Protein backbone atom coordinates (compact mmCIF):
# COMPACT_ATOMS: atom_id res chain seq x y z
CA UNK A 1 0.00 0.00 0.00
CA UNK A 2 1.38 3.36 -1.02
CA UNK A 3 -0.63 6.53 -0.55
CA UNK A 4 1.78 8.81 -2.38
CA UNK A 5 0.51 10.66 -5.43
CA UNK A 6 2.70 12.55 -7.88
CA UNK A 7 1.14 15.99 -8.09
CA UNK A 8 -1.16 18.33 -6.27
CA UNK A 9 -3.53 18.10 -9.25
CA UNK A 10 -3.76 14.33 -8.81
CA UNK A 11 -4.09 14.79 -5.08
CA UNK A 12 -7.29 16.83 -5.35
CA UNK A 13 -8.88 14.62 -8.00
CA UNK A 14 -12.54 13.80 -7.47
CA UNK A 15 -13.61 16.83 -5.48
CA UNK A 16 -16.81 17.73 -7.27
CA UNK A 17 -19.59 20.28 -7.07
CA UNK A 18 -21.37 20.34 -3.75
CA UNK A 19 -18.61 18.60 -1.84
CA UNK A 20 -18.10 19.25 1.84
CA UNK A 21 -14.42 20.09 2.34
CA UNK A 22 -12.49 20.56 5.56
CA UNK A 23 -9.35 22.67 5.20
CA UNK A 24 -6.68 22.64 7.89
CA UNK A 25 -4.91 25.65 9.25
CA UNK A 26 -5.40 28.40 11.78
CA UNK A 27 -4.91 31.55 9.82
CA UNK A 28 -1.86 30.78 7.73
CA UNK A 29 -0.30 28.20 10.07
CA UNK A 30 -1.02 24.86 8.44
CA UNK A 31 -2.94 26.27 5.48
CA UNK A 32 -2.47 23.88 2.53
CA UNK A 33 -2.02 26.68 0.00
CA UNK A 34 -0.83 24.45 -2.85
CA UNK A 35 -3.71 21.97 -2.48
CA UNK A 36 -6.19 24.83 -2.35
CA UNK A 37 -4.84 26.37 -5.52
CA UNK A 38 -4.84 22.99 -7.26
CA UNK A 39 -8.50 22.78 -6.34
CA UNK A 40 -9.14 26.31 -7.60
CA UNK A 41 -7.71 25.17 -10.94
CA UNK A 42 -10.51 22.59 -11.10
CA UNK A 43 -13.22 25.05 -10.06
CA UNK A 44 -15.76 22.80 -8.32
CA UNK A 45 -18.74 24.88 -7.16
CA UNK A 46 -21.26 24.97 -4.30
CA UNK A 47 -18.68 23.74 -1.82
CA UNK A 48 -19.25 23.77 1.91
CA UNK A 49 -15.91 24.63 3.50
CA UNK A 50 -14.97 24.01 7.11
CA UNK A 51 -12.00 25.99 8.44
CA UNK A 52 -11.40 28.04 11.56
CA UNK A 53 -11.33 31.24 9.51
CA UNK A 54 -12.61 32.43 6.16
CA UNK A 55 -9.46 33.45 4.35
CA UNK A 56 -7.31 36.52 4.16
CA UNK A 57 -6.11 38.64 1.25
CA UNK A 58 -6.57 37.09 -2.16
CA UNK A 59 -4.80 33.76 -1.66
CA UNK A 60 -5.71 30.30 -0.45
CA UNK A 61 -9.20 30.01 0.99
CA UNK A 62 -9.86 33.68 0.18
CA UNK A 63 -9.08 32.95 -3.46
CA UNK A 64 -11.55 30.02 -3.41
CA UNK A 65 -14.21 32.35 -2.07
CA UNK A 66 -13.31 35.03 -4.63
CA UNK A 67 -13.65 32.41 -7.35
CA UNK A 68 -17.25 31.81 -6.27
CA UNK A 69 -16.64 28.18 -5.38
CA UNK A 70 -17.92 28.33 -1.79
CA UNK A 71 -21.62 28.24 -1.02
CA UNK A 72 -21.26 27.93 2.75
CA UNK A 73 -18.54 28.49 5.35
CA UNK A 74 -18.54 26.70 8.69
CA UNK A 75 -16.02 28.52 10.89
CA UNK A 76 -15.42 30.27 14.19
CA UNK A 77 -13.75 33.48 13.10
CA UNK A 78 -14.42 34.85 9.62
CA UNK A 79 -12.21 37.84 10.21
CA UNK A 80 -8.56 38.32 9.41
CA UNK A 81 -6.03 40.98 8.60
CA UNK A 82 -7.72 41.28 5.20
CA UNK A 83 -11.13 39.59 5.21
CA UNK A 84 -12.57 41.29 2.14
CA UNK A 85 -13.17 38.12 0.07
CA UNK A 86 -15.54 36.62 2.60
CA UNK A 87 -16.94 39.92 3.81
CA UNK A 88 -17.97 41.04 0.33
CA UNK A 89 -19.74 37.79 -0.47
CA UNK A 90 -21.36 37.59 2.96
CA UNK A 91 -22.73 41.11 2.94
CA UNK A 92 -24.00 40.52 -0.61
CA UNK A 93 -25.84 37.43 0.61
CA UNK A 94 -23.82 35.22 -1.72
CA UNK A 95 -22.31 32.97 0.92
CA UNK A 96 -23.89 31.26 3.89
CA UNK A 97 -22.19 31.28 7.30
CA UNK A 98 -22.51 28.75 10.12
CA UNK A 99 -20.66 30.33 13.00
CA UNK A 100 -19.40 27.81 15.57
CA UNK A 101 -17.39 28.51 18.73
CA UNK A 102 -13.81 27.42 18.15
CA UNK A 103 -13.70 24.67 20.75
CA UNK A 104 -17.08 23.36 19.68
CA UNK A 105 -15.89 23.35 16.07
CA UNK A 106 -12.85 21.28 17.06
CA UNK A 107 -14.91 18.89 19.16
CA UNK A 108 -17.58 18.46 16.49
CA UNK A 109 -14.90 17.52 13.98
CA UNK A 110 -13.29 15.10 16.41
CA UNK A 111 -16.73 13.62 17.12
CA UNK A 112 -17.22 13.11 13.39
CA UNK A 113 -13.95 11.22 13.24
CA UNK A 114 -14.62 9.24 16.40
CA UNK A 115 -18.15 8.03 15.60
CA UNK A 116 -19.80 10.18 18.27
CA UNK A 117 -22.96 11.61 16.67
CA UNK A 118 -23.62 14.15 19.42
CA UNK A 119 -22.21 15.44 22.69
CA UNK A 120 -22.99 18.05 25.31
CA UNK A 121 -20.90 21.13 25.98
CA UNK A 122 -21.27 24.12 28.29
CA UNK A 123 -20.01 26.34 25.48
CA UNK A 124 -22.57 28.78 24.07
CA UNK A 125 -25.27 27.85 26.59
CA UNK A 126 -27.63 30.81 26.88
CA UNK A 127 -26.27 32.54 23.77
CA UNK A 128 -27.69 33.02 20.31
CA UNK A 129 -25.30 30.37 18.95
CA UNK A 130 -27.20 27.75 20.96
CA UNK A 131 -30.62 28.77 19.70
CA UNK A 132 -32.66 25.82 18.50
CA UNK A 133 -30.26 23.25 19.92
CA UNK A 134 -31.34 20.72 22.56
CA UNK A 135 -30.43 21.66 26.13
CA UNK A 136 -29.91 19.12 28.91
CA UNK A 137 -28.98 19.36 32.56
CA UNK A 138 -26.25 17.20 34.09
CA UNK A 139 -25.27 17.45 37.73
CA UNK A 140 -27.15 20.73 38.06
CA UNK A 141 -25.54 22.53 35.13
CA UNK A 142 -27.02 23.13 31.70
CA UNK A 143 -25.36 22.08 28.47
CA UNK A 144 -25.94 22.39 24.74
CA UNK A 145 -26.17 19.34 22.52
CA UNK A 146 -23.87 19.63 19.52
CA UNK A 147 -23.71 17.30 16.50
CA UNK A 148 -20.71 15.76 14.79
CA UNK A 149 -19.19 17.32 11.67
CA UNK A 150 -17.93 15.15 8.85
CA UNK A 151 -16.72 15.94 5.37
CA UNK A 152 -16.25 14.34 2.00
CA UNK A 153 -12.67 15.59 1.79
CA UNK A 154 -10.04 17.08 4.05
CA UNK A 155 -7.15 19.12 2.67
CA UNK A 156 -4.34 19.48 5.16
CA UNK A 157 -0.69 20.41 5.34
CA UNK A 158 1.72 18.31 7.37
CA UNK A 159 5.45 18.26 7.91
CA UNK A 160 6.57 14.64 7.40
CA UNK A 161 4.50 11.96 5.75
CA UNK A 162 5.41 8.36 4.99
CA UNK A 163 3.98 6.10 2.28
CA UNK A 164 1.40 4.74 4.72
CA UNK A 165 0.19 8.23 5.53
CA UNK A 166 1.65 8.59 9.00
CA UNK A 167 2.10 12.31 9.66
CA UNK A 168 3.86 14.83 11.84
CA UNK A 169 3.21 18.59 11.81
CA UNK A 170 5.28 21.71 12.29
CA UNK A 171 4.65 23.56 15.57
CA UNK A 172 1.26 25.31 15.77
CA UNK A 173 0.54 24.35 12.16
CA UNK A 174 -0.96 21.23 13.74
CA UNK A 175 -4.18 22.91 15.00
CA UNK A 176 -7.31 21.38 13.37
CA UNK A 177 -5.52 19.13 10.88
CA UNK A 178 -5.28 15.89 12.91
CA UNK A 179 -9.01 16.18 13.64
CA UNK A 180 -9.94 16.84 10.04
CA UNK A 181 -7.90 13.84 8.91
CA UNK A 182 -10.20 11.75 11.13
CA UNK A 183 -13.45 13.28 10.00
CA UNK A 184 -13.23 13.18 6.21
CA UNK A 185 -14.09 10.29 3.92
CA UNK A 186 -11.01 11.13 1.85
CA UNK A 187 -8.05 12.89 3.45
CA UNK A 188 -5.54 14.60 1.19
CA UNK A 189 -2.26 15.79 2.64
CA UNK A 190 0.53 17.97 1.33
CA UNK A 191 3.70 17.19 3.21
CA UNK A 192 6.83 19.28 3.24
CA UNK A 193 8.91 16.14 3.13
CA UNK A 194 8.19 12.54 2.25
CA UNK A 195 9.68 10.11 4.72
CA UNK A 196 10.50 6.47 4.07
CA UNK A 197 8.44 3.83 5.86
CA UNK A 198 9.89 3.59 9.34
CA UNK A 199 11.53 7.03 9.30
CA UNK A 200 8.90 8.47 11.61
CA UNK A 201 9.29 7.28 15.19
CA UNK A 202 6.07 5.37 16.05
CA UNK A 203 6.00 7.31 19.34
CA UNK A 204 5.94 10.66 17.51
CA UNK A 205 3.34 9.98 14.85
CA UNK A 206 0.60 12.58 15.33
CA UNK A 207 -1.81 11.34 12.65
CA UNK A 208 -1.67 7.56 12.09
CA UNK A 209 -1.93 6.58 8.44
CA UNK A 210 -5.36 4.99 8.90
CA UNK A 211 -6.79 8.51 8.71
CA UNK A 212 -4.96 9.45 5.50
CA UNK A 213 -5.71 8.59 1.86
CA UNK A 214 -3.37 10.62 -0.35
CA UNK A 215 0.01 12.18 0.33
CA UNK A 216 1.77 14.60 -2.01
CA UNK A 217 5.12 16.22 -1.41
CA UNK A 218 5.35 20.00 -1.66
CA UNK A 219 8.94 20.62 -0.60
CA UNK A 220 8.80 24.40 -0.34
CA UNK A 221 5.23 25.26 0.58
CA UNK A 222 4.14 28.84 0.41
CA UNK A 223 3.14 30.57 3.61
CA UNK A 224 -0.10 32.53 3.58
CA UNK A 225 1.37 35.41 5.58
CA UNK A 226 4.16 35.90 3.04
CA UNK A 227 1.74 35.77 0.14
CA UNK A 228 -0.64 38.23 1.74
CA UNK A 229 2.22 40.57 2.56
CA UNK A 230 3.39 40.35 -1.05
CA UNK A 231 -0.13 41.14 -2.18
CA UNK A 232 -0.30 37.98 -4.23
CA UNK A 233 -3.50 37.66 -6.20
CA UNK A 234 -3.14 33.95 -6.57
CA UNK A 235 -0.41 31.46 -5.84
Amino acid at each position, binding site marked *: *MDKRVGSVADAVAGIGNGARVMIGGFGGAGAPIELIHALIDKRPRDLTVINNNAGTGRVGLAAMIDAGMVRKMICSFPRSSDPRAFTEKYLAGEIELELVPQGTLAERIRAGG*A*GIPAFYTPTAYGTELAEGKPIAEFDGRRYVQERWLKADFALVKAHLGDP*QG*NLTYNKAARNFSPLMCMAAATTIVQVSRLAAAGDID*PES*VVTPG*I*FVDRVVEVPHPQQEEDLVRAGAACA
Partner: protein
Amino acid sequence: MTQNTRPNSRLSNAQIAWRAAQDIADGAYVNLGIGLPEMVASYQPPGREAIFHTENGILNFGEPPAPGEEDWDLINAGKKAVTLKLGAAFFHHADSFAMVRGGHLDVAILGAYQVSQKGDLANWRVGSTGVPAVGGAMDLVHGARQVFVITEHLTKAGEPKLVEACSFPLTGVACVTRVYTSHAVVDIADGRFVLREKLPGQAFAELQAMTGATLHVDGEVADLVAPDI
Protein backbone atom coordinates in the same frame (compact mmCIF):
# COMPACT_ATOMS: atom_id res chain seq x y z
CA MET B 1 -1.93 -21.44 -4.06
CA THR B 2 -2.35 -25.15 -3.53
CA GLN B 3 -5.90 -26.15 -2.79
CA ASN B 4 -7.29 -29.36 -1.60
CA THR B 5 -9.34 -31.11 -4.24
CA ARG B 6 -10.69 -33.71 -1.84
CA PRO B 7 -13.92 -32.32 -0.37
CA ASN B 8 -13.68 -31.59 3.35
CA SER B 9 -16.30 -32.92 5.70
CA ARG B 10 -15.72 -29.71 7.61
CA LEU B 11 -13.14 -26.94 7.73
CA SER B 12 -10.66 -26.89 10.58
CA ASN B 13 -10.23 -23.68 12.57
CA ALA B 14 -7.12 -22.90 10.55
CA GLN B 15 -9.07 -23.40 7.34
CA ILE B 16 -11.87 -21.12 8.51
CA ALA B 17 -9.25 -18.49 9.28
CA TRP B 18 -7.67 -19.10 5.88
CA ARG B 19 -10.99 -18.63 4.13
CA ALA B 20 -11.68 -15.34 5.90
CA ALA B 21 -8.17 -14.13 5.05
CA GLN B 22 -8.95 -14.45 1.34
CA ASP B 23 -11.51 -11.67 1.66
CA ILE B 24 -9.13 -9.10 3.09
CA ALA B 25 -7.75 -6.66 0.53
CA ASP B 26 -4.17 -5.48 0.31
CA GLY B 27 -3.70 -2.46 2.55
CA ALA B 28 -6.89 -3.08 4.51
CA TYR B 29 -7.00 -1.94 8.13
CA VAL B 30 -8.02 -4.94 10.18
CA ASN B 31 -8.71 -5.74 13.82
CA LEU B 32 -8.57 -9.40 14.80
CA GLY B 33 -10.34 -10.49 17.96
CA ILE B 34 -8.56 -12.50 20.61
CA GLY B 35 -8.32 -16.24 19.94
CA LEU B 36 -9.36 -17.90 16.68
CA PRO B 37 -9.57 -14.59 14.74
CA GLU B 38 -5.88 -13.97 15.43
CA MET B 39 -5.09 -16.94 13.16
CA VAL B 40 -6.33 -14.95 10.16
CA ALA B 41 -3.07 -12.97 10.13
CA SER B 42 -1.14 -16.13 9.24
CA TYR B 43 -3.08 -16.76 6.04
CA GLN B 44 -2.89 -13.55 4.07
CA PRO B 45 -2.56 -14.38 0.38
CA PRO B 46 0.84 -13.70 -1.18
CA GLY B 47 1.21 -10.10 -2.29
CA ARG B 48 -1.34 -8.78 0.13
CA GLU B 49 -0.47 -7.10 3.36
CA ALA B 50 -3.15 -5.91 5.74
CA ILE B 51 -2.38 -3.37 8.45
CA PHE B 52 -3.37 -4.73 11.82
CA HIS B 53 -4.87 -2.58 14.52
CA THR B 54 -4.95 -3.53 18.16
CA GLU B 55 -7.28 -1.60 20.39
CA ASN B 56 -4.63 -1.02 23.06
CA GLY B 57 -2.95 1.48 20.78
CA ILE B 58 -0.85 0.10 17.93
CA LEU B 59 -1.26 0.18 14.17
CA ASN B 60 0.89 -2.06 12.02
CA PHE B 61 2.16 -4.59 14.51
CA GLY B 62 3.63 -7.86 13.33
CA GLU B 63 4.51 -11.37 14.40
CA PRO B 64 5.21 -12.44 17.97
CA PRO B 65 8.85 -12.00 18.99
CA ALA B 66 11.15 -14.95 19.53
CA PRO B 67 10.74 -16.50 22.99
CA GLY B 68 12.76 -14.52 25.50
CA GLU B 69 12.59 -11.41 23.31
CA GLU B 70 9.23 -10.21 24.64
CA ASP B 71 8.78 -6.55 25.51
CA TRP B 72 5.78 -6.37 27.85
CA ASP B 73 5.14 -2.79 26.83
CA LEU B 74 4.64 -4.02 23.27
CA ILE B 75 1.58 -6.24 23.45
CA ASN B 76 -1.70 -6.72 21.66
CA ALA B 77 -5.24 -6.67 23.02
CA GLY B 78 -4.83 -10.31 24.04
CA LYS B 79 -1.83 -9.17 26.09
CA LYS B 80 0.52 -11.26 23.96
CA ALA B 81 3.88 -9.80 22.97
CA VAL B 82 4.11 -8.55 19.39
CA THR B 83 6.66 -6.78 17.18
CA LEU B 84 6.37 -3.69 15.00
CA LYS B 85 6.42 -3.40 11.24
CA LEU B 86 7.89 -0.38 9.47
CA GLY B 87 5.45 2.49 9.58
CA ALA B 88 3.85 1.55 12.89
CA ALA B 89 2.24 4.11 15.18
CA PHE B 90 1.32 4.27 18.87
CA PHE B 91 -1.71 6.16 20.19
CA HIS B 92 -3.87 6.29 23.28
CA HIS B 93 -7.10 4.41 23.87
CA ALA B 94 -9.45 7.24 22.90
CA ASP B 95 -7.74 7.64 19.54
CA SER B 96 -7.69 3.88 19.14
CA PHE B 97 -11.42 3.58 19.63
CA ALA B 98 -11.99 6.64 17.45
CA MET B 99 -10.52 4.44 14.73
CA VAL B 100 -12.94 1.68 15.66
CA ARG B 101 -16.14 3.63 16.28
CA GLY B 102 -15.44 6.21 13.60
CA GLY B 103 -15.61 3.73 10.76
CA HIS B 104 -11.91 3.73 9.89
CA LEU B 105 -11.32 -0.02 10.07
CA ASP B 106 -12.07 -1.95 6.92
CA VAL B 107 -12.64 -5.24 8.69
CA ALA B 108 -13.13 -6.48 12.23
CA ILE B 109 -13.13 -10.24 12.78
CA LEU B 110 -14.65 -11.76 15.89
CA GLY B 111 -15.66 -15.09 17.28
CA ALA B 112 -19.26 -15.89 18.22
CA TYR B 113 -21.48 -17.92 20.50
CA GLN B 114 -24.44 -17.06 18.28
CA VAL B 115 -25.20 -14.92 15.24
CA SER B 116 -28.78 -14.11 14.30
CA GLN B 117 -30.14 -13.66 10.81
CA LYS B 118 -30.48 -9.94 11.55
CA GLY B 119 -26.75 -9.80 12.19
CA ASP B 120 -27.04 -9.64 15.95
CA LEU B 121 -23.97 -11.06 17.65
CA ALA B 122 -23.66 -12.81 21.01
CA ASN B 123 -20.05 -13.44 21.94
CA TRP B 124 -19.29 -12.08 25.37
CA ARG B 125 -21.10 -14.20 27.93
CA VAL B 126 -23.30 -17.25 27.93
CA GLY B 127 -25.30 -16.58 31.03
CA SER B 128 -25.56 -14.40 34.10
CA THR B 129 -23.18 -16.24 36.42
CA GLY B 130 -19.45 -15.81 36.89
CA VAL B 131 -17.46 -12.67 36.29
CA PRO B 132 -18.65 -10.80 33.21
CA ALA B 133 -15.98 -9.27 30.96
CA VAL B 134 -16.58 -7.46 27.69
CA GLY B 135 -13.33 -5.79 26.61
CA GLY B 136 -13.56 -4.11 23.23
CA ALA B 137 -16.03 -6.44 21.52
CA MET B 138 -19.05 -4.15 21.83
CA ASP B 139 -17.07 -1.32 20.28
CA LEU B 140 -15.55 -3.39 17.50
CA VAL B 141 -18.89 -4.61 16.19
CA HIS B 142 -19.85 -1.01 15.45
CA GLY B 143 -17.78 1.11 13.16
CA ALA B 144 -15.77 -1.36 11.11
CA ARG B 145 -17.03 -1.30 7.52
CA GLN B 146 -17.26 -5.10 7.50
CA VAL B 147 -17.74 -7.21 10.60
CA PHE B 148 -16.81 -10.83 9.99
CA VAL B 149 -17.54 -13.67 12.36
CA ILE B 150 -15.51 -16.85 12.20
CA THR B 151 -16.88 -19.80 14.08
CA GLU B 152 -17.77 -23.48 14.12
CA HIS B 153 -21.15 -24.03 12.48
CA LEU B 154 -22.42 -25.92 15.55
CA THR B 155 -21.70 -25.68 19.25
CA LYS B 156 -19.85 -28.54 20.91
CA ALA B 157 -23.26 -29.78 22.03
CA GLY B 158 -24.43 -29.82 18.42
CA GLU B 159 -26.67 -26.76 18.61
CA PRO B 160 -26.78 -24.26 15.72
CA LYS B 161 -24.77 -21.07 16.21
CA LEU B 162 -26.57 -19.37 13.31
CA VAL B 163 -30.01 -18.67 14.71
CA GLU B 164 -33.20 -16.71 14.16
CA ALA B 165 -32.64 -14.72 17.33
CA CYS B 166 -29.82 -14.94 19.84
CA SER B 167 -30.68 -16.42 23.23
CA PHE B 168 -27.39 -15.37 24.81
CA PRO B 169 -26.72 -11.76 25.89
CA LEU B 170 -26.03 -9.59 22.86
CA THR B 171 -22.73 -7.97 21.97
CA GLY B 172 -24.31 -5.88 19.24
CA VAL B 173 -27.45 -5.49 17.18
CA ALA B 174 -27.48 -5.86 13.38
CA CYS B 175 -23.72 -5.57 13.20
CA VAL B 176 -22.37 -8.73 11.54
CA THR B 177 -21.97 -8.57 7.77
CA ARG B 178 -20.54 -12.01 6.97
CA VAL B 179 -20.06 -15.34 8.78
CA TYR B 180 -17.36 -17.91 8.00
CA THR B 181 -18.07 -21.28 9.56
CA SER B 182 -16.69 -24.78 9.41
CA HIS B 183 -19.38 -25.51 6.83
CA ALA B 184 -20.35 -22.36 4.97
CA VAL B 185 -19.87 -18.73 4.12
CA VAL B 186 -23.02 -16.77 4.85
CA ASP B 187 -23.80 -13.09 4.32
CA ILE B 188 -26.26 -11.13 6.40
CA ALA B 189 -28.43 -9.16 3.97
CA ASP B 190 -31.73 -7.45 4.73
CA GLY B 191 -32.18 -9.41 7.93
CA ARG B 192 -31.65 -12.79 6.25
CA PHE B 193 -28.88 -15.36 6.02
CA VAL B 194 -27.76 -15.58 2.39
CA LEU B 195 -25.64 -18.63 1.59
CA ARG B 196 -22.58 -17.80 -0.50
CA GLU B 197 -20.47 -20.93 -0.19
CA LYS B 198 -20.99 -24.44 1.14
CA LEU B 199 -18.87 -27.56 1.33
CA PRO B 200 -19.02 -29.26 -2.05
CA GLY B 201 -19.66 -32.62 -0.40
CA GLN B 202 -22.62 -31.50 1.68
CA ALA B 203 -26.21 -31.29 0.50
CA PHE B 204 -28.00 -27.97 1.00
CA ALA B 205 -30.72 -29.69 3.02
CA GLU B 206 -28.15 -31.09 5.43
CA LEU B 207 -26.57 -27.67 5.89
CA GLN B 208 -29.98 -26.11 6.40
CA ALA B 209 -30.74 -28.72 9.06
CA MET B 210 -27.60 -27.64 10.94
CA THR B 211 -28.66 -23.98 10.80
CA GLY B 212 -31.13 -22.34 13.17
CA ALA B 213 -32.74 -20.05 10.58
CA THR B 214 -33.58 -20.14 6.91
CA LEU B 215 -30.59 -20.07 4.58
CA HIS B 216 -31.56 -18.04 1.55
CA VAL B 217 -29.98 -18.55 -1.83
CA ASP B 218 -29.54 -15.42 -3.88
CA GLY B 219 -27.35 -16.12 -6.88
CA GLU B 220 -24.59 -18.67 -7.11
CA VAL B 221 -23.55 -20.82 -4.16
CA ALA B 222 -19.84 -21.50 -4.63
CA ASP B 223 -17.85 -24.42 -3.29
CA LEU B 224 -16.19 -23.78 0.05
CA VAL B 225 -12.74 -25.26 -0.32
CA ALA B 226 -9.56 -24.61 1.61
CA PRO B 227 -6.04 -25.96 1.39
CA ASP B 228 -4.77 -28.58 3.82
CA ILE B 229 -3.17 -26.52 6.53
